[in-house]
């Protein structure tokens, strides 16, 4: 009995350590029968979306470390095109694709990740085999409510959108990423505007158009739900607004990362810009700061 009592001492130490403090983690994404519907029913679409997801995270990691410039644009756009030519089957583990960004800008990383989860789930709901306008509305309402309850969800800043300087600094990569964002928007519109039988034909056409015009120049507005997905906007305005906010947040982040962080001074300035971005978007600033 005495021995057994002493065996519990480590447990007390464990709980003491646990009480030291914690940073809130993201929760596991909400689950439902619709989960992974895009992967199951539209594997070609899902694979291209995975390539775009990899591209986004890789772009953020490169921009965080080296900034955005023409020198890296060529190499990165080639990488993106090679990913799209043989797209991955599964979505990336974000913190392995962008490890430095994940640990040095944790709140921004989690906001982007939680946004990606929300975007993926919205598409899965629309792609579900039992999808109907009523069910979609109910399910999307639920995930939107859960999204907003997270500490890492985005709230709209008062200031208008900034200029597209980052796009001009790396035009080739920006065009491909913008085409990728537009693919998500058009796919949502295809899935929302058609029944299960018609969806695959519309998605097939969208994919063919995407493959043909991935490097075509477009304005950022063409990749917004409010321009390219009228059905989604009319039926699910809250979700469309939130996803457009996510696109805008990503664009503003790239603007903030434009000069990069190769020197100590540059890192200091970059960190300050990213903190300002976090404040504007209602995110915590603790945990933002490079070495």
């Amino acid at each position, binding site marked *: 009995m005495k*021995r*057994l009592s*002493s*065996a*519990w*001492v*480590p*447990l007390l*130490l*464990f709980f003491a*350590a*646990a009480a*030291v*403090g*914690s*940073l*809130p*983690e*993201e*929760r*596991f*994404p909400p*689950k439902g*029968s619709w*989960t*992974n519907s895009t*992967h*199951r029913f539209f594997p070609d679409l899902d694979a291209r979306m995975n390539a775009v997801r*990899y591209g986004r995270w*890789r772009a953020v990691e490169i921009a965080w470390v080296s900034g955005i410039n023409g020198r890296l644009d060529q190499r990165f756009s080639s990488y993106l095109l*090679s*990913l799209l030519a043989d797209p*991955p*089957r*599964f*979505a*990336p*583990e974000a*913190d*392995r*694709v962008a*490890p430095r960004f*994940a*640990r*040095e800008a*944790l709140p921004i990383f989690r906001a982007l990740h939680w946004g990606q*989860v929300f975007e*993926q*789930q919205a598409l*899965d709901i629309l792609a579900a085999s039992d999808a109907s306008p009523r069910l979609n509305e109910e399910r999307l309402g639920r995930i939107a409510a859960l999204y907003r309850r997270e500490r890492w969800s985005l709230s709209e800043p008062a200031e208008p959108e900034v200029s597209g300087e980052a796009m001009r600094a790396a035009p080739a990569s920006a065009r491909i990423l913008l085409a990728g964002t537009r693919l998500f928007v058009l796919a949502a519109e295809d899935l929302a505007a058609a029944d299960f039988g018609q969806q695959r034909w519309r998605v097939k056409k969208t994919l063919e158009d995407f493959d043909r015009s991935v490097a075509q120049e477009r304005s950022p507005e063409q990749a917004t739900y409010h321009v390219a997905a009228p059905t989604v906007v009319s039926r699910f305005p809250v979700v469309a607004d939130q996803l457009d906010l996510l696109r805008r947040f990503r664009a503003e982040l790239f603007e903030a990362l434009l000069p990069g962080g190769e020197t100590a001074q540059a890192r200091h300035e970059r960190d300050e810009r990213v903190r300002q971005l976090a404040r504007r978007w209602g995110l915590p600033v603790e*945990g933002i*700061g*490079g*070495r």
Partner: protein
Amino acid sequence: MDGRVREGEGARGRGGDYSSPTLPLFHSPPLSLAATFILSIVVAAIAAPMAAQQLSNLEPERPITVEDARPVPYRAFAGAVDWTYSERRDGFNDYGPGFSLLYGAARGLETGAALRYVTRPRRNAGRGISSGDLFLHALYEICPESATGPALAVRADVQLPTGLDSKGTDVHLTGLATRTFDAFRLHANFRFTREGATAPMERSERYEGVAGIDYLLSRRGLTDTLALADVVVRTNPLIGGPAVITIEAGARRRIGSQTSFFAGAGTDLAGPGGRTKVRVRVGVSQMY
């Protein structure tokens, strides 16, 4: 939780009590173990795939000892089943299935249960290897990785004496650290074990240190295949016995949105006479 099949940890034998009642498993032919394993794989494989795979979320013994300092996400379930074969230098080989369930009970807090069976339970009990003990654990993330420091976590396991020849409840306390460097991560685990009941020649307090690495294998930077390796040093369960040194290597690969296949192998470089010549483990894990 790791090391239940290995000699030198989770010592349950207390000298191998031959008059102890035997588990039904002891009398079962090997075919029933294989059937259990195959059935478990089938069940795992037909489960509906879900979102957000956690290939990098390492669990001890899936497939090697090292664990990362990261709990499963809040409200996530993860289940794993594996099969292990150990060839020993004294020729008394063993094999059997292992099972585990994890749940993200709160943000940063993982809870779980695990169970492993091995053949030759009486002999393995004498070697200090449990068969059928239930492990319950909680893993708490103290802090995630930051610009300056590694991810840190603590883990507490309670090992209940539900297996053959088991006596006393053991407690394991583990400190875990993980640091990422581009495509690879380094891990360090340090474990203290307090045995609830021991035989006269057995240590009641034991230590284990693990240094491990994992590496993304894809040249395109995909996160679908992970290679792992580690070195484990632990105290011998017997007083005066030599320390046990093990090296292991393995891989985890996504085979579904939520499903991973894993395989690993290891060998004891130093230790007592009946130490493992080679240990092979294969299995699948699924996150819900």
